[in-house]
């Protein structure tokens, strides 16, 4: 398949998908908590843009609905909730020390190559012209997973989890023109409820260990000098 055979709309879908991948990388390397939330909001907006572009390119009107839903939820509501949480937890100026950022980025690039290799057979299926995006969405999922593994801060781990969901949604939209609306609504509320529950959990974690550093959950005593 050649890019020349695609319409300008479909090319725009490819560009947005590539930008989503870039935002995933910037989430992976972002030290500041508030900036991570903003990057996550941008990712949600780009996913919504992909849904809208796919709707425009394929003429499937129900995708406009899910684009609006995604934009409202992932680009506005959830980032706003996270922002409010961060403000209530007084973490606005929190800067995390990343362990070996360059190595994490390289691992991320390796994961992208792995996702491409895994999803090569999908390219041979007779699906939508935008099926190549499946590799991108799989890498967004993998990068979200990597982010949850490498970070210690609980809020950032939740952002990684949510960006994994973005990747899944991208795959559904790009490869099969979206899921049935009932399923989409279900997932949307799932994510929303998850965000609320995570918020409650943050307060519990902080009450118990005085910090949101998840690594400290492994410690058995509360004494500071036990820390390595």
């Amino acid at each position, binding site marked *: 398949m050649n890019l020349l055979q695609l319409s300008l709309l479909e*090319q725009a879908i490819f560009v947005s998908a*590539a930008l989503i991948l870039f935002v995933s990388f910037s989430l992976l390397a972002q030290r500041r908590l508030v900036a991570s939330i903003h990057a996550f909001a941008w990712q949600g907006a780009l996913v919504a843009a992909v849904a809208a572009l796919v709707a425009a390119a394929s003429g499937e009107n129900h995708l406009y609905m899910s684009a609006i839903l995604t934009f409202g939820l992932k680009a506005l509501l959830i980032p706003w909730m996270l922002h409010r949480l961060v403000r209530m937890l007084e973490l606005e100026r929190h800067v995390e020390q990343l362990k070996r950022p360059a190595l994490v980025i390289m691992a991320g690039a390796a994961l992208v190559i792995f996702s491409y290799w895994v999803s090569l057979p999908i390219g*041979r299926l007779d699906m939508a012209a935008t099926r190549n995006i499946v590799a991108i969405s799989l890498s967004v999922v993998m990068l979200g997973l990597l982010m949850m593994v490498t970070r210690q801060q609980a809020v950032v781990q939740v952002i990684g989890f949510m960006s994994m969901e973005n990747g899944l949604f991208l795959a559904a939209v790009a490869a099969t023109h979206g899921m049935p609306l009932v399923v989409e609504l279900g997932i949307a509320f799932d994510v929303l409820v998850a965000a609320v529950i995570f918020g409650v959990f943050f307060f519990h974690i902080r009450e118990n260990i005085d910090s949101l550093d998840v690594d400290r959950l492994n410690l058995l005593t509360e004494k500071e000098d036990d820390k390595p």
Partner: protein
Amino acid sequence: MADYLNPAAWIFAFIQALLFAAAAPLLVAWVRRVKSRLQNRSGPELMQPYRDLYKLFGKQAMVSQNTSIIFRAAPYIVFCTTWLAAAIIPLVVTQLPTAAIADVIVLVGFLALGRFFLALAGMDVGTAFGGMGSSREMLISALAEPAMLLAVFTVAMTAHSTNLSSVIEHVLNSGIILRPSYLFALFALMLVAVAETGRIPIDNPATHLELTMVHEAMILEYSGRHLALMEWAAHIKLMLYGVLIANVFFPWGIATNFSTSAVAIGLLAITLKLILLAIILAISETVLAKMRLFRAPQYLNLALLLALLGMLSHVILEVGT
């Protein structure tokens, strides 16, 4: 592909190289002027870099007695390699014989050769500043070069050629097409260009602030015609990156034959593109502050990541099955 036995084409290539060297100080002056206007200063006149060069060529070149032949040879080598590299890039016309005999890898090689001698000359005098500047320059270039090569390879993979003329003609012929790989390669190349030409987040070309300078530290001991050649080479290098970015990613307007009207349009187009690029550079230099040297690897890692993503998105999204 250009015919490299055509004498008219060689004359054109020669004129174009001369034009490159003659226009480079003007571009630098324009960047300075826009920048000073943005900062509410009146700024120097557009002819000022020419006057500076003229003045420096007229002055006696002082050479320390501790230096070896390298110190005296380096300005000529740096100037010649930068100029030769500039001659490879199609400025107004694509059908260049110089672009046919040397591709983009040669371009990177020329720049690396020039940088090597620049760093040697910085160390040759034996002053602390020169050595410090050289070590910083090598740190930056060691990180910037892979990013630049990756960005260039991304573009070359789409065109199936590393020859700049063919790349530009390929982009011209494929019409308006949104490529995610080009987007990433463009941003990567812009970041690399800023780092390599010593512009603001990496190095400040306007000051001799002792602790932070990179390029200025290496040429601190030069005077007279040697200094003029070094400065001129730096001007050409800035223009080289500008033309490379403008003509590879936005080639519209460039002449593909030697007819007068096409060449006139090409000249006008490249002038407009460079004016716009210089304004973007001036704005970014006004908005950004200079980074600490230890943050330069992060900045260049971003460039490398962008170039890598460009290549990956080319393979994943644009080639397909």
